[in-house]
């Protein structure tokens, strides 16, 4: 009696392509995406972009720059990339800070004048010229890695300097412990203890302060998000919002399939409504629906998570409408491709989850390998999240949203035009 039930279920599954796709293709796709991101494919692991400004041009600073350039996990830029053959001028402290603010790199290092005279520090006021580390606080990993690698580069790329300074410190601290030396040593140890206690009380990590973290003195400063109360809220509001917008839009566009099946579509098209008018009406409705969803999502983030919503209204409206338009057009395309609701359900789940994983809705794209980051640019999610990040994180003006706005509008228009062409199958028999 059990075998006939199993047999019936197998036959039914075999004939249900939607269920087959969800059962077998979706898990494989997801597994592959996560395997690529986290599977330790070292040749494609994401490198951290670091902007490096050497104001000193001393032997020590040049050694340090070379040491950092040798680090395989860093991509060091000393000047902006040029689209022509003429190289652009090197970054300055100001232009490096602007570049981090604009999201061109998560970290900038500024080696100040005089670094070569006093490159090594054992912390505090014991010497060492402080290197500035400017960071974007939305990326919590990059500054810590860069700070660590900076110390490593210092240790390995400046051996002479290290030896010379080591002798100096030995003379200073070990050359016979006179009462005066004992007092100094005790004072220094006390300072270290106090610093440790302060860090523990503030819950901060060494990389986020100007603490002693190695022989090279580093002072970190967040140039983006330093005043944000909750760094990742705007990111997740956009990231999760876009993913669910895609689901809602495809479901809402699927009403077309219901109407086609019930004959309502036929009846509507026998009136004065043409297919183009009908689809434009549905697109308008779906765009407004998606925009309303975003408004609700961000208002919730404002009320519950204190997202700074009301000071970003213009950018939100621009990004919200463009995202909603692209997402609505995407839904229309899916609905026009599919023949049944079941097909639509399977295809939309497959595509939307894949797009969301690759496009940064599930975890930030900067954590992904480079190839995956580039692949993300083929998704609506990535452009939408980038745009919202510019608005809410970087506080950039509306005019700076032009790349995201252009891409989302173009995507929306292209998808709608394709959907309109495919919808010809409903127009006449």
């Amino acid at each position, binding site marked *: 009696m059990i075998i006939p039930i199993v047999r019936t279920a197998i036959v039914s599954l075999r004939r249900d392509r939607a269920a087959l796709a969800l059962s077998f293709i979706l898990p494989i796709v997801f597994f592959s995406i996560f395997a690529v991101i986290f599977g330790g494919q070292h040749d494609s692991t994401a490198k951290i972009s670091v902007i490096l400004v050497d104001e000193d041009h001393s032997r020590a600073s040049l050694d340090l720059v070379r040491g950092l350039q040798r680090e395989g996990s860093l991509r060091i830029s000393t000047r902006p990339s040029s689209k022509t053959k003429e190289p652009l001028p090197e970054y300055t402290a100001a232009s490096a800070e602007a570049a981090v603010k604009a999201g061109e790199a998560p970290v900038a290092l500024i080696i100040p004048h005089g670094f070569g005279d006093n490159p090594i520090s054992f912390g505090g006021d014991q010497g060492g010229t402080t290197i500035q580390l400017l960071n974007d606080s939305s990326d919590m990993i990059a500054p810590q890695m860069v700070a660590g690698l900076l110390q490593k580069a210092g240790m390995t790329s400046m051996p002479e300097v290290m030896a010379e300074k080591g002798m100096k410190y030995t003379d200073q601290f070990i050359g016979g412990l006179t009462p005066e030396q004992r007092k100094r040593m005790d004072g220094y140890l006390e300072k270290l203890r106090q610093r440790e206690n302060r860090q523990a009380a503030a819950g901060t990590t060494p990389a986020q302060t100007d603490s002693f973290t190695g022989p090279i003195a580093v002072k970190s400063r967040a140039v983006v998000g330093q005043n944000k109360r909750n760094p990742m809220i705007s990111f997740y509001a956009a990231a999760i919002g876009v993913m669910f917008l895609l689901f809602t839009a495809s479901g809402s566009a699927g009403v077309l399939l219901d109407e086609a099946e*019930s*004959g*309502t579509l*036929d*009846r*509507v*098209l*026998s*009136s*004065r*409504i043409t297919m183009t008018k009908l689809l434009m009406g549905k697109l308008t409705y779906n765009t407004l629906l998606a925009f309303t969803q975003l408004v609700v999502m961000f208002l919730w983030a404002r009320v519950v998570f204190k997202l700074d919503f009301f000071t970003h209204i213009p950018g939100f409206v621009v990004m919200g409408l463009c995202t909603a338009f692209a997402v609505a057009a995407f839904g229309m395309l899916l609905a026009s491709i599919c023949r049944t609701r079941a097909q639509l359900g399977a295809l939309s789940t497959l595509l939307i989850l894949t797009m969301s994983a690759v496009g940064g809705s599930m975890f930030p794209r900067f954590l992904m390998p480079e190839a995956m980051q580039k692949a993300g640019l083929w998704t609506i999610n990535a452009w939408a999240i980038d745009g919202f990040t510019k608005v809410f994180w970087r506080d950039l003006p509306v005019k700076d949203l032009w790349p995201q706005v252009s891409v989302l509008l173009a995507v929306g228009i292209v998808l709608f035009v394709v959907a309109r062409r495919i919808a010809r199958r409903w127009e*006449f*028999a």
Partner: protein
Amino acid sequence: MNVPSISSAPLQPLSNLLESIPLEVVSLAKRFGQVQAVDGISLELRGGECLGLLGPNGAGKSTLIRSIVGRVIPDEGSVSVFAYPANTSEARAALGWVPQDLALYPRLTCRENLAAFGRYHGLSGGKLSESVAWCLDWASLQDRAGELAKNLSGGMKRRLNMAAGIIHRPRVVLMDEPTVGVDPQSRNRIFEMIEALRGEGAAIIYTTHYMEEAERLCDRVAIIDHGRIIAQGAHEELVRSVFAQRSQVLAHFDGPPAVIGAWVEQHAGRLLDGAAEFTIEDSTLIAGLLDDAARSGLKLVDVTLRRPNLESVFLHLTGRELRD
């Protein structure tokens, strides 16, 4: 039954309404893959006339209707509505279509459904309100105006489906099996609605595979089979043209089926659902037929003498029953 007057709401203005034929179909043909759905159909519908399209499922009735309404592009032939080609805005305005499916918005109320389809046909403001009120009255749905379509009974849904098809007050109405799946009481209500519409001058095409409906509602009947009109005319005229003054005898016999079969064949009759059917020139010939049955050893159970009907005509012309 109180059916409202259609003249209370304005009809669609058409400049050449009076001088043109409401609907003219010429040599229409449509093939879907290997299936010739419509095969050279020509017909004409006059003002105030109700033309029945009678045929079994798959005969091509719906394809013909969908071609007229512009939802199917024919391979050959033409359709004109008051001299306007099908699918022009003038033709669309003059045509009302009641599809076989319940083409409604289930989550809208009756009133909202009618208003939505009215707007799709370009109605607005006072005209729309007036037309919605008239349709609710016509379909006897005034007291259910605020009910969601999905919550209506089957018969009410059918009536709302019909009302949505004539919300813009068309002069030519195409009804594709509007009584499918409704109980006899609702069916009678629908007949009354159609008769009221007809009485007000609308030209109607009514497709069905129920012979009784065609006989009751239609001035003329076109019998369709395999995409062709195989006979056309008033139903009495059709019966007369096929059977003249002949009558039909239906008799049930008790006996071995093989013997009954052989005897029926010998007398040029046929077996239908266990009954022997014969066409006889004169009703007096029935006595001789029954005598012969008795001599052949068949025991008569019952016998009926009847005038042939449209079903008989269909059977005679196609060799198949209408509901096959």
